[in-house]
């Protein structure tokens, strides 16, 4: 593991910046290119990066499987419940302008929560698929 020291140190230094960049892309998506999908993929890529350098068991300890599976479903749930909140507050399904005191603020709030839901689902699914592919042994070694 001697030669891998550089990789490990660089990975530990880079990971917080990657996560902050993902959050920037997510929340600044209203003013610059970005949004939920890109941020979700960058979050998944950060954890995959960690798994490539430190090994899959370490990554599984950092982001355990039940958490990932919860994230997969939670995002869709958030999205759908924004729609239901629109229903409960008097408009049609997925109406944003009833969500706050003024239509424009309601739109901004609705767009914010919808993008959060999308980012959670996309990052969860990409990470889960990576875990399933990387955790599976070749059939010859498994017997």
């Amino acid at each position, binding site marked *: 593991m001697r030669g891998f020291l550089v990789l490990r140190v660089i990975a530990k230094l880079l990971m917080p910046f990657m996560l902050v960049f993902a959050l920037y*892309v997510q929340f600044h*998506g*209203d*003013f*610059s*290119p*970005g*949004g939920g*999908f*890109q941020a979700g*993929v*960058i979050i*998944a*890529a950060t954890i*995959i990066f960690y798994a490539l350098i430190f090994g899959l068991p370490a990554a599984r300890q950092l982001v355990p499987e039940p958490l990932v*599976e919860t994230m*997969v*479903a939670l*995002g*869709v749930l958030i*999205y*759908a419940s924004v*729609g239901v909140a629109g229903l409960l507050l008097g408009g049609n399904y*997925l109406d*944003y302008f009833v969500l706050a005191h003024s*239509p*424009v*603020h309601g*739109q*901004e709030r*609705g*767009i914010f929560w*919808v*993008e959060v*839901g*999308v980012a959670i*689902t*996309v990052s*969860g*699914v*990409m990470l*889960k*698929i*990576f875990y*399933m*592919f*990387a955790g*599976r042994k*070749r059939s010859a070694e*498994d017997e």
Partner: protein
Amino acid sequence: MGALTLGIALQRNLYAVVILSGAYSFLMATVLVALDAVDVAMTEASVGAGISTVLLLGALYLCGGEEAKPLTRPWLPLVIALVISGALVYGTLGLPAFSDPMAPINTHVVPRYLHDALKETGVPNVVTAVLASYRGYDTLGETTVVFTAGAGVIALLRRIRRRKDGERKS
């Protein structure tokens, strides 16, 4: 990009093919930036060159990385491909020219989006506004598709092990 595609078609070492397809995705993202599609370029670069490459490498590790030599020379698919391309080129002669402001794609509902998006939603990025607000229902469907893909992969690749009697079920 044509050269990269030719390389992908002819190369038989699949690991090299995966790297070539990652390079292809990056070139596609550059072309998309040149076409002013910045959101799409960011998504294509991260998803196409990032996640796709990782998934393909994972699958290749599990499947073996060499493609067998074809037994017969594929003349019929080549002829089919050339015929289809000829028909498509003939069809595009009737399409509007590049960058025509009067083309139907630019005149139906898009001027309203470009005009009113900032006033109605308070979000300057028109792509995000259309994606999340004007066409929010489609984005709900897309998120459901991503969720279904995740659930499908879990269902396909899950292993249920029975350790007691030594029998293993996939």
